[in-house]
């Protein structure tokens, strides 16, 4: 895939990922602090873990951009 043909720059893409991730992770953390059952806590932790993985991806996109510009 050619990076130059992406409709968004990687920096913009990273930015666009972060806004919904703020909603997903923020609400999940707020939910984790409620009175949840053991099973519900596990579900919420899975959401947080998956959100963190996406966030790492957003960071890696920026690293890729830096490498591409070398």
């Amino acid at each position, binding site marked *: 895939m050619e990076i130059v043909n992406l409709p968004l720059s990687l*920096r913009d893409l990273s930015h666009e990922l*972060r806004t919904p*991730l*703020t*909603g997903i992770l*923020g*609400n999940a953390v707020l939910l984790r602090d409620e009175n949840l059952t053991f099973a519900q806590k596990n579900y919420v932790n899975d959401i947080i873990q998956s959100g963190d993985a996406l966030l790492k991806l957003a*960071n890696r996109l920026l690293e890729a951009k830096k490498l591409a510009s070398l």
Partner: protein
Amino acid sequence: MMPYVLLVDDDPITLYVHHQMLKNWGYTVDCAVNGNQAIALCLNSYDLIFMDCGLPDIDGFTASKTIRELENIHQIAPRPIIMLSAYTHTEQLQAECIAANINCFITKPVSFEILKNIVSDCLNTTPIKSL
């Protein structure tokens, strides 16, 4: 007295998450969804201002500069402004923060623990620490 905070963000979900979090910490929170609304509210006796970077009318840097001018005109001691942005920190953004007298730049999403530490640092620091 619990801190009185102005929260500026145009994304309703982000605004809700941060509002809820600050409320849970016992803070009193006013919200603004654009730069001009933030400017209209900024003379209230806030202890701290959270500013988004990309806003629909004027950007967070321009809004912060105007807030600093108004503080100066009305002889209000400058309150800490924390920029919460979905952009990652770059030298260019750092320079814009300094130009607008913004105290701190944080990339969203931010863990609540980190945010809590930064907020208490900002509230305990007088005079305001520069970047």
